[in-house]
């Protein structure tokens, strides 16, 4: 365990919204090319922590952070950091599918274009196709690439957002309840996708669905009131967790 270098290391992290503290002294390491699930009751700070990894919290004025987050050797909250570059390395997929009001093609091409990741149109075409392939969406949309991204089903839109996230070839993909608006079939497809993506990406997924966390992740972190209560192998967390709080939560005994 100790000889694998973590992709993300969090040390002594505290996060405040104004005077209200949302994250309390969190220390954890996220392994590379694994799926880590964040679980815990509503308001426990999962999204807050997730947003720290690519500094999405910067968009919230009252949000203040102390402690350290490292992406490999890069100090994420260093003043010198290039935030745009950081967000290409750490991509994000949100709860509600949010394709841009552009064509399917442009949704995926947008990132690589603005970050100058391709030198000509044929290379861009290649990235778009490959990303849609990886997101398991290519066959379904290849004949309608120039129709609006908002004109496909919710499940397809979510996979489009995943294609968009992987088009810039990030190292980490953050997903905040990516399936909560999807039906079981669309959910199964996204889960299948997550499984295949972990070969190339480090994935962190927030989910309220315990079975989903158990299915897709190798590590699970359970949070309560802004603190990390338990963090370990998913197999163990869902069959015999160490902490009573975790046990109460995953079995629906929380009161």
């Amino acid at each position, binding site marked *: 365990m100790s000889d694998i270098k973590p992709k993300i290391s969090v040390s002594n992290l505290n996060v405040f919204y104004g005077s209200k503290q949302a994250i309390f002294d969190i220390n954890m390491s996220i392994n590379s090319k694994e799926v880590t699930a964040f679980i815990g009751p509503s308001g426990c700070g999962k999204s807050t922590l997730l947003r720290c990894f690519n500094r999405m919290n910067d968009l919230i004025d009252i949000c203040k952070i102390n402690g350290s987050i490292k992406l490999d050797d890069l100090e994420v909250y260093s003043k010198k950091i290039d935030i745009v570059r950081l967000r290409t390395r750490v991509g994000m997929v949100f709860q509600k599918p949010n394709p841009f009001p552009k064509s399917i093609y442009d949704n995926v091409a947008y990132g690589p274009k603005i970050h100058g990741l391709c030198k000509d149109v044929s290379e861009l075409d290649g990235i778009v196709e490959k990303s849609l392939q990886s997101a398991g969406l290519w066959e379904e949309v290849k004949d309608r690439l120039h129709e609006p991204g908002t004109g496909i089903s919710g499940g397809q839109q979510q996979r489009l957002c995943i294609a968009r996230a992987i088009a810039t070839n990030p190292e980490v993909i953050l997903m905040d309840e990516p399936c909560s608006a999807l039906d079981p079939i669309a959910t199964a497809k996204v889960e299948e996708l997550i499984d295949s993506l972990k070969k190339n990406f480090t994935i962190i997924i927030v989910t309220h669905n315990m*079975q989903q966390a*158990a299915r897709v992740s190798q590590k699970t972190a359970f949070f309560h009131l802004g603190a990390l209560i338990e963090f370990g192998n998913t197999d163990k967390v869902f069959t015999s967790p160490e902490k009573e709080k975790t046990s109460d939560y*995953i*079995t629906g*005994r929380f009161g």
Partner: protein
Amino acid sequence: MIGSHDHISTSFNNELSNLNESLLEMGRILENMYEKSIIAFDQKSEDASREVILNDKKIDDLETSIINQIQMLIAKRQPMGVDLRVLVGCTRIAGYMERIGDLISSVNKRNIILIEHNIENEKKDIVDLFSSAMKLFKKSLDCFARKDFKLAEVVRKQDLDIDKQYKHFFNELLEKMSNESKLVVPGTHMLFIAKNLERIGDHATNIADSISYMATGEVQAPDRPKISE
């Protein structure tokens, strides 16, 4: 059941307590069958043995009902953690109890055959085996009723004594049978009865192991010391 607090869902709590009740019911019927078997054997009562054999059907039906309950619970609740372990544990316990029912029933089938034989000299040893296995089985039921996994350790130790008793009886009877040919037929039946009682002891131990599993999540119980043949 195991697990300190109630679920938020009261119907989930109720379903679990119904399942628990079905297993306790299965245990009570088995205990009853078992007690009657001792009397049937001791008093050479064919009627009592037949009654026990008929009761085995109830055990099979209860097992089916328990498996159905567990299936529904898994489908509806998608249990995690201790709930998952309890359901896996209960599935196994129901299976062991069903086996115990079969074993008791087969002991009684042989008892009916033995009624016409003279087995006065061996009777006491078999009755002793009966009562050792009974004690063990009752302890394992108690262990389940109280969800007391420390008691499981006691059950495992006692199983060793039964194994010893059985081996001793087996060797002695075998020797007698080789000297006394009219003992071959009843002796063979008695060997099987003794073997079945020893197996009941094993299943009582399995039940106790399943209870420790439910409490701790350790699937593999530590190796049980074996008595060499």
